[in-house]
């Protein structure tokens, strides 16, 4: 496996530091989980890797020319917009191959006429399948039923087997334990 991302003694935040110093690496083909209680800066860490949040100390090294895809917890504002699922996938360059049957035949329907779970999975899929070397996922199992989580688990493994590195933030410990090769638990500021 070759290194895609390496962070050393990294402290990130928005207006002020939000994380404890952290060492982190993700290699191609590897799925790394980030867990920890609310407020320890898991989402902020993903935002910093994507270039949005501020790095206060430490450093992030990325493989030159690394292609990133970032899924956040923000709900894409597609309600009230005439955008079909197939058009959404085309925007990010994601393919439809491998979609679960309960979505594959609904790609020509407007996103806001799908159920909340279907819409969430399709907007997640558009990021997950976008051409990228490193995929950053923030609570991807939110709003997914058991079938959705099972399909996501299987697909993440396929994506990693195809060479992508995946960094997953999740509160869903069962999901993280099953899907991740390594899990890093972030500590709060009061954890010493």
């Amino acid at each position: 496996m070759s290194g895609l991302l390496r962070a050393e003694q990294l402290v990130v935040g928005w207006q002020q530091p939000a994380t404890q110093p952290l060492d982190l690496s993700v290699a191609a083909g590897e799925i790394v989980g980030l867990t920890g209680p609310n407020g320890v800066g898991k989402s902020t860490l993903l935002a910093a890797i994507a270039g949005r949040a501020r790095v206060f100390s430490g450093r992030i090294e990325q493989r030159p020319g690394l292609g990133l895809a970032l899924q956040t917890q923000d709900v894409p504002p597609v309600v009230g917009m005439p955008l079909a699922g197939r058009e959404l996938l085309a925007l990010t360059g994601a393919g439809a191959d491998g979609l679960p049957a309960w979505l594959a035949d609904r790609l020509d329907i407007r996103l806001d006429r799908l159920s909340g779970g279907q819409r969430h999975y399709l907007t997640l899929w558009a990021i997950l399948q976008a051409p990228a070397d490193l995929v950053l996922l923030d609570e991807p199992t939110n709003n997914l039923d058991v079938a959705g989580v099972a399909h996501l688990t299987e697909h993440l493994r396929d994506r990693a087997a195809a060479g992508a590195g995946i960094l997953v933030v999740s509160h869903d410990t069962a999901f993280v334990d099953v899907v991740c090769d390594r899990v890093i638990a972030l500590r709060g500021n009061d954890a010493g």
Partner: protein
Amino acid sequence: MQADLFLIPFLTGLACAIVLPVLGCYLRLRDEWLAALAYSHVAAAGALLALVAGVAPVLGGLATAALAGAGRRLFARRLSGGAGDAMLLLAGWAGAVLLAANAPMAERLGHALFDGQLYFSGSDNLYLVLPWCLLAIPALAWLSRQLLLARIYPDYFHAQHLPVWPVVSGFDLLAALTLALATMTLGVMGGFALVFVPPWIVFRRAQSWRAGLFLSALIGALGYVAAFAIALGLDQPFGPVLALLLIAVGLLIA
């Protein structure tokens, strides 16, 4: 003879009626439909200012709208939540009314701009509007993917280490200049009706983005042709007829 007299205004307005609804879809996508009204008012004020200064009104309208389009991002942080567009609208309206009140020649043009002056549109206007509209459609097609991505996945550009400002500022400038030309052709409210109502209908009814763009342009063009015929036949001002017709269609379909 009479047909020739109306052919140039008809063609000039038709070009606007096809492009404005498509532009309006992207303004609605970005929650910036108020910007259309702001650009129109600023362009009207600029045209009147140019007239008073002895310069061609169309140049004044284009220049002030371009300034507004290019400059609105500079104050975006201080004037968030649509406040910038509201300020531009108020400034444009106030400037236009004051100019019209204090300069007799500006008063006449002001009435034409705010009432809808389609039948006075000449060939010089057509030679500006037609090439611009032919340029605007491919420009919007080129910007489309980026504008949709910037709206649906705002972090996409960060993650790809791509700057988003060329897309956003390019669109602002395109919208401002298109609205300025449309204001000179259809008047402030005629242009706004075309940029607002067809997108409002298709956002509710269309099955896909591509179908929405096509339907929006179709509604704009058909509404425009019908309004042109009704206004001409009944000897009514064009702008209000177009606005009422589009509203009626909107309430019926949406």
